[in-house]
């Protein structure tokens, strides 16, 4: 994996007495202490963070936690007092903190685009003129500019609106213009400073979905600032939580939810339903841990009500429930299935735990998880076709001895942060007899 942006011990101080403030930072002083002693405002201190290519890295925190400050160091809208911000520029990396103006301008024009909370559109320009701003500043000839602008407008479904002025559009549409403007420069790195915070919840959700869809195609490196954990968990492949200008915890969404580093993070996740974050992946078990019967049958539960058969290729050949043949269905459509049928569900590692629970409730057994390579784990990537490929890959990985399984069994979750998730733990405890299984299989003839 290539590193796109690398923050190395970044300190940002706003004010005149830089040296004094930096000395206080080294001594571990808090923001309030620094403000009192030097009159300077601590933006962020000792921030180190690596963002790989193609990631959506979310910076989270309450307002004033330094998340925007850190983001804006990437294109030097904020000046870094000490430390390095390395940004990938083609084949080499550039330290934004020390590079000259010409390099900085080229980075801003070609490598790093930005989307703002308040949109930052120019009200006297039409939508297409706004989208073309970055290209215009970079001196792209008009014909090419027009063509690229039209392409971006189509991408965000605004091609009907290209001649309107920005203020004639609704907030959601204006932010789509902002997105198109950032995409138009074809910069591989995208900075998003609370882009959806100013929008109403429905539009926000819609734009989040659109962003994820676009990201699946465009594969940008996105650094996303948010104060909304639900948003961060939905969008981010990595989440960094900041407090008082310092990074508190960095990790994958489920790491944040399952293993909060301190009370600040715990407070953050207190209101988040872990079911909306966790997926089947987090509770899967290795199929070798299941009880094996004769002729390739494998029991899914300890009560021995449900079993399925695996052929030589590791594919599911048949499923049985209470001794009768059962339908083999994806638990994604659990609500659409008639209840009286005998069913054995299967899930992807990316299937949300909510859906898994629903399927468990219906069939009284855990779904069979169709395992996919960790890299393809994101729910959007998981389709039946992809599952087959993923299964093959997984087997390869297992043969090469690389541990790709993440061992979150029921017991493991039971030892989790019980205090904060009492409801969650209760569910797991009272249903301990259910077992989760992870299998390198794909549904037969589906």
């Amino acid at each position, binding site marked *: 994996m290539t590193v796109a942006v690398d923050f190395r011990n970044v300190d940002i101080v706003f004010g005149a007495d830089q040296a004094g403030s930096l000395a206080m930072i080294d001594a571990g002083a808090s923001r309030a202490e620094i403000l009192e002693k030097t009159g300077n405002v601590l933006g962020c201190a000792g921030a180190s963070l690596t963002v790989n290519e193609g990631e959506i890295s979310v910076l989270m925190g309450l307002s004033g936690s330094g998340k925007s400050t850190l983001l804006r160091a990437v294109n030097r809208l904020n000046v870094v007092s000490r430390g390095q911000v390395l940004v990938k520029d083609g084949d080499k990396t550039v330290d934004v903190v020390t590079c000259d103006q010409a390099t900085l301008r080229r980075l801003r024009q070609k490598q790093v685009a930005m989307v*703002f909370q308040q949109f930052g559109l120019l009200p006297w320009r039409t939508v297409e003129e706004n989208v073309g701003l970055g290209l215009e500043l970079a001196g792209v000839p008009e014909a090419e500019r027009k063509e690229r602008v039209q392409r971006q407008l189509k991408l965000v479904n605004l091609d009907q609106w290209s001649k309107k002025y920005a203020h004639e559009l609704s907030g959601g549409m204006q932010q789509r213009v902002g997105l198109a403007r950032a995409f138009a*420069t074809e910069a591989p790195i995208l900075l998003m400073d609370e882009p959806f915070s100013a929008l109403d919840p429905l539009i926000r959700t819609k734009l989040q979905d659109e962003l994820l869809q676009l990201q699946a195609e465009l594969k940008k490196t996105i650094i996303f600032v948010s104060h909304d954990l639900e948003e961060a968990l939905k969008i981010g492949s990595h989440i960094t939580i900041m407090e008082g200008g310092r990074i508190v915890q960095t990790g994958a969404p489920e790491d944040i939810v399952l293993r909060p580093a301190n009370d600040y993070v715990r407070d953050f996740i207190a209101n988040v339903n872990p079911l909306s974050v966790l997926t089947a992946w987090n509770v899967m078990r290795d199929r070798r841990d299941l009880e094996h019967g004769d002729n390739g049958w494998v029991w899914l539960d300890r009560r021995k009500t449900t079993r399925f058969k695996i052929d030589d290729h590791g594919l599911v050949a048949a499923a049985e429930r209470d001794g009768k043949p059962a339908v083999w269905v994806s638990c994604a459509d659990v609500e659409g299935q008639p209840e009286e049928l005998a069913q054995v569900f299967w899930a992807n590692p990316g299937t949300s735990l909510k859906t898994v629970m629903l399927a468990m409730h219906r069939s009284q057994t855990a779904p069979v998880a169709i395992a996919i390579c960790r890299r393809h784990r994101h729910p959007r990537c998981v389709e039946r076709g992809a599952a087959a490929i993923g299964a093959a890959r997984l087997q390869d990985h297992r043969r090469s001895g690389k541990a790709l399984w993440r061992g979150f069994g029921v017991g493991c979750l039971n030892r989790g942060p019980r205090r904060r998730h009492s409801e969650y733990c209760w569910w797991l405890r009272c249903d301990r007899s259910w077992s989760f299984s992870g299998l390198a299989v794909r549904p037969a003839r589906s």
Partner: protein
Amino acid sequence: MDPISKFMVDHKIPIGAWGKAFFGFLTDNFDTVFRAFSNGLNFLLDGLVNILLMVPPVLLALIIAIIAWLLQRSRPLAIGVFLGLIFIINQNLWKQTVQTLVLVVAAAAMAMAIGVPLGIWAAHKPKVYRVMLPVLDLMQTLPTFVYLIPVLTLFGLGNAPGLIVTIIFVIPTAVRLTHLGVVSVPKSIVEAGEAFGATKSQLLWKVELPSALPTIMAGLTQSIMLSLSMVVFAALIGAGGLGTEINRALGSRRIDLGLEAGLAIVVLAIVLDRMTRIAVGGKK
């Protein structure tokens, strides 16, 4: 007189004497320069007036009405402008009006040409603005008659000193409104420009000036209005036009002449105001 006051009065700071000495120095040493400048300016202004007066008055009124239509694309306005100018022709004040028009437009144009760059500079450099501010206050509040005298001694009588006095009076408005416009460009759009790699000049021309344009155009309108208000003063030092008529009416207590010339100024003011103000509205 009490001793303290007497002491202070006895040690009066000779500001008046210094000022006099300064202007004396200027007239003694650079008289020819100022006179040449004044003559050149007079020649230009008079030449322009004469050219405009060669055009038949009704035709010129029509041309101005067409310009009004081009600026704002409003037929009622163009008709109004035309009728107003016809009224002035009817009052037999056309020649004076053209003289005033040239003076006012020249003064406003010069004031904008000097004031807008100064305003931008001040907006970018708060320190510069802090130094500039008292000077602007001085230019705006120093009674006009006070600087009529030195301008008269330096430039003599005529249109040129009238123009210079008017410019001095009007520049602060152009500077202030330009400064206001550029300073109040929303931070978010300036940052957007920066984030997409704008150079300093791109930022100025593509972000700051378009955003500040309505305020700057308001500055233009204000400059024209203020120039008109200076017409009577400028006439005192020999600038021709409607101001001369009003001064003459004042001197000979002629209500009729004063009323006619006064109304002509009002008509001219309204015409110019509507023509320039609406140019702002068209942008939105």
